[in-house]
């Protein structure tokens, strides 16, 4: 069922009585606005009308309401004010007796055909007919109807509200059509649930005294600081139900009216509830106002209430109680305004007096919006889109432009600048200004055309709450950009000039010349030569002459209507003219792209010889100072100064920011400001001072420099336009280290593209009306410094929360931050301390900058940038005060800021006595530790030195072994091989050589085997030595005729033995065995090992020829070698031999040496 209109179609049936039986409603007694009966014969004739002879009867009628009489159900008039209400909630009926039997097939019934009330709706009903009034036939019922959507029951205004019927035709059409101004004046920003908004439907907006923006939504309340939404819910004592209204009373208490959860009020973020149980007429709170006497008026869905001093007021001073929907209220000294049932009333002499807007009786309107503007004027927004106003007791219905859609005005907001904004139920926003209407809809960027509420904040931003598109902010653009859409020939602007008549001449890059007169632009059709020309240089000269420097066509001079062309070298493809500047007399300096500087005089160009020093550099800009000097900016060679025929050059070396000079500006004090590609340089009194991004300059590529009438310099850069006062620039140029605080103008302020164009002259222009013009790569940007809002008020700075180790210590939400008089004490053991703060500037929260300082810890201010939290960790005990200050987008600082005092308590180990004790203990301990540490270190170093020494010895030994043993054998192999290659070798010699090569090679491999074995640390045991000796001896004697007998104990004592010792042992045994194999001619050799706990000995004995030891010289290589090695091992060698009696060599090593 639909509150507005339900059509019941059924098969034709004969009837005299038509009865509508109401079994159940959505709320309270049922209301029928109108019931219409149609017959088969005449589908458009309503048989139910009283005027048609029908008679109405009913179970009963609610008493006391003139507007709810039974007769109104068949009066042909629509709306709640012409409806019938039953006297019982259930089992009510209404019956219409037709004048005669008729065959009917359709009944149309409604609760409110105007569609703004949806309560008292029959949700269960039966429609039956009878021919005699006794026998009834049911024709239809509620069974086949879709129920009313959930959640719509207490919505106050139903969905039909937005499409409320056109009831009042426009009276006059005197206003101009809508859409005169374009939306481009405003910058639109949007916040949705992704950004933290509780719901997409924003139902109420309020800026409290402290500066916060409070946002009521269909899912609860949130507080907004421009950056972050802080939600308020059950924890703060408020239900997250749909908010309908918000108000802050004179005491600072925040009141929140909800849709079904009553009223909430709170200070400091904690809320308390007022509901029907407390005496509220209804839990649906539609509107709240505080009157001049300080009483709070509460408009509910079932009457008006008044609250004062913590009680509901109930006395004779109040108007009579009416149990009806009060949707809007507005206090007025002349008598409170209220909207009851959609109709405007004023309280006069304690009675509600119905008010009509305007004088005509037909102008009676249903009002949806009720507001007072800053000037005191009252505004009444009608449900049909008509606006009325009341001033000094006179009510006027304002005329409405003819071509505007009829739509309900949901909210009205008169701004401080005098604009009147209307939020429409389904057609976006309308702005009335000086009789003109501008509309703003989804086409312009709104996310929803259904507006719910409007608010102008203190910085003159307009906030717009929508039904499904979240929160919007409209801020006037501070500067305006003209593009081809405004009539310019081209969007890339180069140079511009203002002629004597005040017309603007604008040269573009490849799109010719445009002319602008009072913000209207058009192509300047001076010559076909200029059609697609680039004009880097447009100069308004003396005597009303306009000079046009072009890229291809030379120089033009426009005098009145006369246009002359002067070529530098040729008519086509002429030298590009990129800079123009008049000289002191009647000449014109012409800077060219490649051919330097020329003086134009009497129709002739003369090259300037003195500027030859500039080389072939391109001239970018020219300007004359008060002393008559000509300053010449070049693209790469720095800055030239032509004075009295002398050229002086200033480059990076002399202190210029960069050698590519883009623009020059001489101010009234003859200070030269030089914009380069690498920063700004000030030339004052012959001294250069450079400012770059390091000093806080917004950008280093400066293309335009203009000065406004307030002593501020405006810079066109590659990152937008920014301004700085000369005072501030001077301060930093003189060496002050505090950074520059530029005020920046970017896209949000109205630039279509951030990049300004430069490197030619003139670039940028200040017109005589004081406006500043900047050429950009997308259009011509203009700002009127005089029209800019005066430097905005400093933003309020607030502490939001203080956290210790992540847990809130104090927060604005629970009010603990409010009392800053006593320092908060923090117990010992605190780790991380966080201060969360904010500054309430809503125009450009992203440009709000902070500085903070923890007094007692930070020596100076900490530049926090846009960060809104400060962190400290492990603060030493003591008193502290956190101080934070902030500035808004205009660099206006709130120097007072916000503070928070705290005191960190010492832990017992941080107290003085403990520390003294600890110091004593520590000193003692430290002394002892230092001593033992030094000792240990010395010891360790000794060991290390020893180890290194050992290691070096070992390496030397291995190297020596490889060299001595392997080297000799390999040398022999190579020697023998070389001999073998010589021609004429005898076969037997060859054979012998080859055998010797083979033997040597095998021995080499064996030697390597021995070295590898000795080096391998796995073999560091006597046991392994025994094994290896066996292996070695067998291997050695195996191919020889000498039989080898081994006598090794199966088990030898487990002793470790170093690589060096093993190797010595192996080599002496090897030497002895080799001697046996080579010289003894023995048939048998015995190799024995004995190992006791005290010593190891190895004996090599043969039965060979023997020799006389005395005959062997003491310095015999082999013997000497063996003795030396044994001496190294700490052992000894015994040699016994006799000629013919064999030889015996015994090696003995005491085991303590291993």
């Amino acid at each position, binding site marked *: 069922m639909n509150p507005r209109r339900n059509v019941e179609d059924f098969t034709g049936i004969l009837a005299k009585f038509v009865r509508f039986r109401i079994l159940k409603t959505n709320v309270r007694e049922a209301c029928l606005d109108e019931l219409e009966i149609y017959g088969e014969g005449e589908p458009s004739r309503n048989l139910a009308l009283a005027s048609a002879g029908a008679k109405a009867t009913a179970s009963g009628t609610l008493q006391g309401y003139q507007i709810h009489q039974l007769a109104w159900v068949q009066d042909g008039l629509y709306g709640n004010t012409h409806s019938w209400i039953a006297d019982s909630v259930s089992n009510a009926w209404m019956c219409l007796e037709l004048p005669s039997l008729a065959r009917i097939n359709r009944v149309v019934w409604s609760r409110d055909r105007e569609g703004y009330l949806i309560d008292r709706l029959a949700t269960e009903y039966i429609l039956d007919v009878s021919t005699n009034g006794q026998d009834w036939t049911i024709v239809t019922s509620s069974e086949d109807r879709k129920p009313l959507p959930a959640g719509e029951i207490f919505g106050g205004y139903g969905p039909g509200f937005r499409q409320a019927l056109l009831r009042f035709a426009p009276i006059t059409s005197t206003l101009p059509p809508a859409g005169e101004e374009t939306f481009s004046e405003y910058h639109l920003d949007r916040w949705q649930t992704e950004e933290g908004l509780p719901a997409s439907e924003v139902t109420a907006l309020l800026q409290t005294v402290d500066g916060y923006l409070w946002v009521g939504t269909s899912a609860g309340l949130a507080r907004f600081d421009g950056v972050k939404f802080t939600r308020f819910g059950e924890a703060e004592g408020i239900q997250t139900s749909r908010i309908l209204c918000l108000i802050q009373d004179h005491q600072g208490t925040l009141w929140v009216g909800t849709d079904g959860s009553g009223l909430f009020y709170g200070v400091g973020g904690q809320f308390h509830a007022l509901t029907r149980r407390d005496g509220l007429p209804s839990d649906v709170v539609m509107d709240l106002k505080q009157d001049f006497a300080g009483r709070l008026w509460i408009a509910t869905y079932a009457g008006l209430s008044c609250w004062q001093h913590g009680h509901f007021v109930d006395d004779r001073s109040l108007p009579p109680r009416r149990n009806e929907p009060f949707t809007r209220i507005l206090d007025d000294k002349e008598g409170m305004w209220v909207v009851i049932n959609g109709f405007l009333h004023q309280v006069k002499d304690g009675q509600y007096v119905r008010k009509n807007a305007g004088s005509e009786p037909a102008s009676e309107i249903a009002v949806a919006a009720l507001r007072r503007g800053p000037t005191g004027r009252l505004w009444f927004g009608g449900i049909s889109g008509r606006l009325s106003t009341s001033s000094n007791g006179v009510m006027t219905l304002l005329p409405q432009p003819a071509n505007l859609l009829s739509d309900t005005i949901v909210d009205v907001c008169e701004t401080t600048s005098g604009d009147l904004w209307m939020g429409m139920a389904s057609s976006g926003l309308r702005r009335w200004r000086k009789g003109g209407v501008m509309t703003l809809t989804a086409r312009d960027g709104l996310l929803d055309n259904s507006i719910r509420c409007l608010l102008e904040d203190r910085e003159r931003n307009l906030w717009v709450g929508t039904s499904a598109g979240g929160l919007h902010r409209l801020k006037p653009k501070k500067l305006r950009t003209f593009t081809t859409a405004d009539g310019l020939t081209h969007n890339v602007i180069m140079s511009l000039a203002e002629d004597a008549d005040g017309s603007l001449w604008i040269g573009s890059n490849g799109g010719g010349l445009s002319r602008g007169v009072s913000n209207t632009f058009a192509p300047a059709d001076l010559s076909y030569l200029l059609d697609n020309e680039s004009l880097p240089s447009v100069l308004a000269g003396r005597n009303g002459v306009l000079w046009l420097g072009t890229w291809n066509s030379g120089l033009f001079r426009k005098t009145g209507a006369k246009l002359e062309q002067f070529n530098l070298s040729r008519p086509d493809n002429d030298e590009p003219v990129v800079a123009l500047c008049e000289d002191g007399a009647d000449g014109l300096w012409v800077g060219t792209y490649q051919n330097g500087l020329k003086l134009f005089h009497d129709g002739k160009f003369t090259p300037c010889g003195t500027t030859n020093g500039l080389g072939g550099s391109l001239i970018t800009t020219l300007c004359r100072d008060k002393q008559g000097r000509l300053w010449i900016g070049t693209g790469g060679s720095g800055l030239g100064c032509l004075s009295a025929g002398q050229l002086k050059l200033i480059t990076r070396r002399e202190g210029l920011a960069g050698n590519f000079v883009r623009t020059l500006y001489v101010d009234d004090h003859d200070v030269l400001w030089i914009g380069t590609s690498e920063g700004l340089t000030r030339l004052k009194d012959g001294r250069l001072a450079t400012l770059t991004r390091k000093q806080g300059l917004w950008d280093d590529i400066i293309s335009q420099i203009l000065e406004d009438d307030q002593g501020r310099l405006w810079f066109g850069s590659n990152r937008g336009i920014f301004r700085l006062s000369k005072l501030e620039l001077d301060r930093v140029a003189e060496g002050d280290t505090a950074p520059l605080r530029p005020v920046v103008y970017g896209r949000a302020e109205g630039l279509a593209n951030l990049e300004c164009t430069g490197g030619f002259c003139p670039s940028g222009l200040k017109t005589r009306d004081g406006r500043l013009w900047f050429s950009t790569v997308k259009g011509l940007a203009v700002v009127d410094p005089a029209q800019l809002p005066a430097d905005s008020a400093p933003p309020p700075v607030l502490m939001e929360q203080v956290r210790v180790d992540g847990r809130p210590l104090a927060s604005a939400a629970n009010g603990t931050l409010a009392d800053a008089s006593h320092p908060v004490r923090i117990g010992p053991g605190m780790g991380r301390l966080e201060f969360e703060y904010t500054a309430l500037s809503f125009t450009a929260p992203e440009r709000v900058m902070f500085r903070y300082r923890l007094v007692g810890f930070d020596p100076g201010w900490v530049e926090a940038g846009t960060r809104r939290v400060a962190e400290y960790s492990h603060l030493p005990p003591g008193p502290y005060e956190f101080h934070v200050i902030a500035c808004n987008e205009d660099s206006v600082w709130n120097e007072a800021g916000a503070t928070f005092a705290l005191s960190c308590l010492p832990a017992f180990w941080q107290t003085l006595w403990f520390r003294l004790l600890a110091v004593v203990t520590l000193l003692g301990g430290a002394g002892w530790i230092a001593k033992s540490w030094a000792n240990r270190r010395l010891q360790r170093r000794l060991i290390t030195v020893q180890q290194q020494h050992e290691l070096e010895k070992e390496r030397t030994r291995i190297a020596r072994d490889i060299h001595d043993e392997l080297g000799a054998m390999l040398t022999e192999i190579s020697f023998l091989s070389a001999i073998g290659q010589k021609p004429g070798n005898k076969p037997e010699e060859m054979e012998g050589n080859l055998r010797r090569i*083979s033997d040597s090679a*095998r021995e080499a*491999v*064996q030697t*390597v*085997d021995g070295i*590898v*074995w000795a080096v391998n640390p*796995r073999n560091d045991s006597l046991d*392994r030595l*025994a*094994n*290896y000796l*066996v*292996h*070695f*001896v*067998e*291997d050695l004697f*195996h*191919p020889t005729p000498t*039989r*080898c*007998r*081994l*006598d*090794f104990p*199966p*088990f030898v004592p487990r002793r470790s033995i170093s690589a060096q010792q093993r190797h010595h042992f192996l080599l002496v045994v090897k030497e002895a065995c080799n001697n046996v194999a080579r010289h003894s001619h023995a048939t048998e050799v015995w*190799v024995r090992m004995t190992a006791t706990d005290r010593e190891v000995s190895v004996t090599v004995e043969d039965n060979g020829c023997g020799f006389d030891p005395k005959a062997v010289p003491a310095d015999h290589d082999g013997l000497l070698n063996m003795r030396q090695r044994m001496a190294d091992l700490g052992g000894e060698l015994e040699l016994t031999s006799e000629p013919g009696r064999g030889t015996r060599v015994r090696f003995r090593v005491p085991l303590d040496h291993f």
Partner: protein
Amino acid sequence: MSISVSIVEDEARIRKQLATLIGDAAGFRCAGVYPSGEAALREIPRQPPDVVLMDINLGGMSGVECTFRLKKLVPQLQIVMLTVYDDSEQIFKALEVGANGYLLKRTLPDEILKAVKEVNQGGAPMSGYIARQVVQSFAKRSSSDAPQLAPREAEVLALVAKGYINKEIADRLGISLETVRSYLKNIYEKLQVRSRTEAAMKFFTK
């Protein structure tokens, strides 16, 4: 009939020389050369040769493991380990898992052929060096169920450890050369039985 010999050697130069040596020698035939234990394990069981020359230090699967696995698959296969350097531990391990002998790579070609021939004839060449370790091995592990050496076997082993060659032992003990050989074979088998459980655990729990 010539003795077929397969070579498992990862070093290409030595592999080639050994193949040439075997191929050129009368009475020997090169049955296959394999660069890795894995390849040998895949190919050799298909057509087992008489003798395998197995490098002990193969990249990838070690020569010892390859020997163990080959012996499992082809128990009658005779395997002779090859090693560049003395590495008693590895050699002994190989013998424990079933290798029939070992050769140093620097051994003269004739010696190599002689050793292969001996192994093929069922010989179990044992050097004093190995014998010494066998003695130690038997002494070390003397659990009750492990086979012990018979008195004569111990005697033969002791002589080998002293450097006596088989013929000398036969003369000295008054037994035939064949008997000495069979004693040695028994000693090897007992050694392998002793080590089998341990070896199995070692390779199969990998």
